[in-house]
């Protein structure tokens, strides 16, 4: 591996895996949230207290980005699976698209969430 010059597509391939692993572990939070909703007001209040804390918000923000990035990066892989987008400029465009798109969607989702009062 050391003999290769690092490229954006290589780095993003690692990020695709890393976000996948993060999303895998993060499903524990989703399970906690759903089970708490099914358990009752006290359990749900715990989840809300955690999700509303600074650490909680950072984790959920990170989770939002991991999900959006992994989805767009996955669509990029899907395009490649279908046999398109292998030219150098197309590869770069798809990769930058996933990178910038993931950040943009994350920010957009959080703006909407705060706008409708989720930040309370």
């Amino acid at each position, binding site marked *: 591996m050391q003999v290769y010059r690092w490229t954006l597509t290589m780095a993003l391939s690692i990020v695709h895996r890393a976000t*996948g692993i993060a999303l895998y572990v993060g*499903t524990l939070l989703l399970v906690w949230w759903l089970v708490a*909703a099914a358990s009752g*007001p006290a359990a749900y209040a715990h989840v809300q207290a955690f999700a509303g804390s600074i650490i909680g918000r950072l984790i959920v923000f990170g989770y939002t980005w991991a999900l959006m990035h992994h989805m767009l990066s996955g669509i990029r892989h*899907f395009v490649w699976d279908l046999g398109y987008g292998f030219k150098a400029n197309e590869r770069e465009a798809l990769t930058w698209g996933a990178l910038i798109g993931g950040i943009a969607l994350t920010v957009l989702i959080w703006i909407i969430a705060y706008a409708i*009062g989720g930040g309370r």
Partner: protein
Amino acid sequence: MSATDTPKRSMRTPLGRVRNLGAAHSGTSDFWRQRITGVAMTLLMIPVLVIIMMLLGRNQVGAAQILSSIPVAVILLLFIFASAWHMKIGMQVVIEDYVHNEKLKLVSVMLNNFFSVAVALASTYAILKLSSGV
């Protein structure tokens, strides 16, 4: 595994035994399911985000009311089913790429299956419980 278990005397040619099976010995089924579940989650992403937005800032009573509605429950069940399958396959690929000790690999793949099924079942149980209103 099946390729090595095949008896020495066989009508099948060596090429026939390995054709379409690949390194995972199970063919392309996981590859294909990984794509199906990925596409499914991409299609479900907007409804799922809308549901999460609807739940923001509500207490348990409000959240339970939304989660128990049939379209919401079905969308979430589909998303959970696709997620659990997708992440099980994805993590198995990671394990097969980086864990080279056969015993450790076996244990890791097994734990990965347990974890993914547990996530799917716990979430499904919670949604069904909310839907039945018990």
